[in-house]
């Protein structure tokens, strides 16, 4: 079994998000970058599936050389080898196109991604890959079981879940619950330094989406405190002032 896991490099979840003075660029100074948490869940699932020598895991990342610590982290957690497409990931369409170009003749049995990156939140790469590679894609899965060539996946839907079966190769984006987090051990960290990391040039592509500017949410007014002994006052405020009930 051959599994490809797509990973992205994102600001740590505790980051306070700020932009440059004209709000056109993310201010990365002093920001710690990490392996996107959902991608880490996808990688953890791949490791579970390959346990006991049942398969190999390649991680692929579209990004510049500065992202290599994140790729090494994925190798330390348990991927066998890595590929970096050397380009800034301008949008999901660009990223999916690069990964599809790499994967199209490699016969992966499955391609896993995280449900979304925590910086762009597009939730687009998995389904785009499906279209580029003409493979089924199942977005936002909470469970994945293999039985021979057949996979059973449970995907989230509003107010419930849908159980989907697929034969043959597929693409899925993983959410929390699909696997337990894997913590890299010392052997993993040591071997990550010597595992193969191939760097490939990007294919050029016409871009159809560009971020023009960013904006941070407008801060709320001061909080209005209500005495714990008078909760009826809160009900009154919600009805008459906030008008939400």
């Amino acid at each position: 079994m051959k599994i490809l896991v797509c990973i992205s490099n994102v600001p740590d979840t505790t980051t306070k998000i700020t932009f440059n003075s004209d709000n056109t660029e993310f201010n990365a100074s002093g920001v710690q970058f990490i392996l996107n948490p959902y991608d880490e869940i996808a990688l953890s699932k791949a490791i579970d599936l390959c346990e006991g020598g049942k398969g190999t895991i390649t991680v692929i990342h579209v990004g510049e050389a500065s992202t290599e610590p994140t790729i090494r982290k994925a190798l330390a957690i348990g991927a066998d080898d890595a590929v970096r497409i050397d380009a800034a990931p301008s949008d999901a369409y660009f990223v999916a196109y690069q990964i599809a170009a790499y994967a199209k003749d490699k016969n992966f049995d499955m391609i896993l991604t995280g449900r979304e990156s925590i910086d762009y939140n597009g939730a687009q790469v998995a389904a785009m890959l499906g279209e580029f590679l003409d493979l089924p894609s199942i977005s936002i899965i909470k469970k994945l079981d293999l039985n021979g060539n057949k996979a059973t996946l449970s995907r989230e839907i509003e107010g419930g879940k849908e159980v989907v079966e697929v034969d043959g190769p597929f693409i899925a984006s993983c959410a929390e619950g699909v696997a337990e987090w894997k913590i890299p051990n010392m052997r993993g960290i040591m071997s990550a330094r010597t595992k193969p990391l191939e760097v490939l040039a990007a294919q050029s592509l016409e871009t159809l989406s560009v971020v023009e500017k960013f904006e941070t949410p407008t801060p709320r007014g001061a909080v209005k405190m209500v005495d714990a002994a008078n909760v009826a006052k809160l009900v009154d405020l919600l009805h008459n002032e906030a008008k939400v009930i």
Partner: protein
Amino acid sequence: MSVLVYVEHAEGKFKKSTFEVVSYAKAIAQQLNTNLVALAIGNLSAEQLSSLGTYGAQKVLHVNDAQLGTFNAQAYTSILSDAAQKEGATVVVLANSFSGKGLAPRLAVRLKAGLASGVVALPTIQGASLSVKRTAYSGKAFAHVKLSGAINVLALNANAYPVSEQPVNAEVVSLASSAKPTDFKTSVKEIVRASDKISLPEADLVVSAGRGMKGPENWHLIEELAESLGAATACSKPVSDAGWRPHEEHVGQTGISVSPNLYIAVGISGAIQHLAGVSSSKTIVVINKDPEAPFFKVADYGIVGDAMEVVPQLTAAMKAYSQNG
């Protein structure tokens, strides 16, 4: 030229989020001075289909056959892209729902279209391209994205655009499926829907709780408060990590982002990751025994007190209010 809107339904019934996307697509059609065409797939009554006229859809395309009763991203993409081309659509609108997230990216690739998901406002039309506001950095920011495809796809967040009625007579047209046999590589085995629960991503009112509840055995207090309001229940990450509540209730940066009219947070301190997922809520109420809890800084209303005492009192007050109101 036209605007095409894909209308999702659950077992033959449209949801509020569907009327939101139709209202939103109608406003874009008006900006572009063109017609709004809706497309529905699966089992739906004629009455349901023509009800879309209430929100301004002049034409409703309906595609149904035995294979299309359940969601299939590839087949639905074939049908939608075919309709978009036949109707000369320049903008396609979908809900940024779980299925929408499986469908919109495939559609964008198939149509060589620009795509913005997580959209929260109407676009600004700039000649042949459009600029639209979407969420980014997991609710900590917004991005204004310029799309320059010959056709562009927008996936609208739930609770981001109000439902607005603009009644017209909707012409319902049945179409044959344009899905290919090779589209059907997946099959749906089971759909489990908790019918008594309100879907969290789309909920108007949310009652959420954290470790301040001390344990899962106290969650009935949260459920009772939610029930008195008709609200969905949610929780913080430590609570779902501890297994007190299921992962699908986890709100925050690595969980679900919500934007209800009212978010009541009980016993949640307000870590930056949690705040990211709730920052677009219209009104936030925080109940916490620690007056220094960071959540109070981003709340509209706050109560300092023990959840075990405050929550039952609030439930009683809500019940009294709804009986008198």
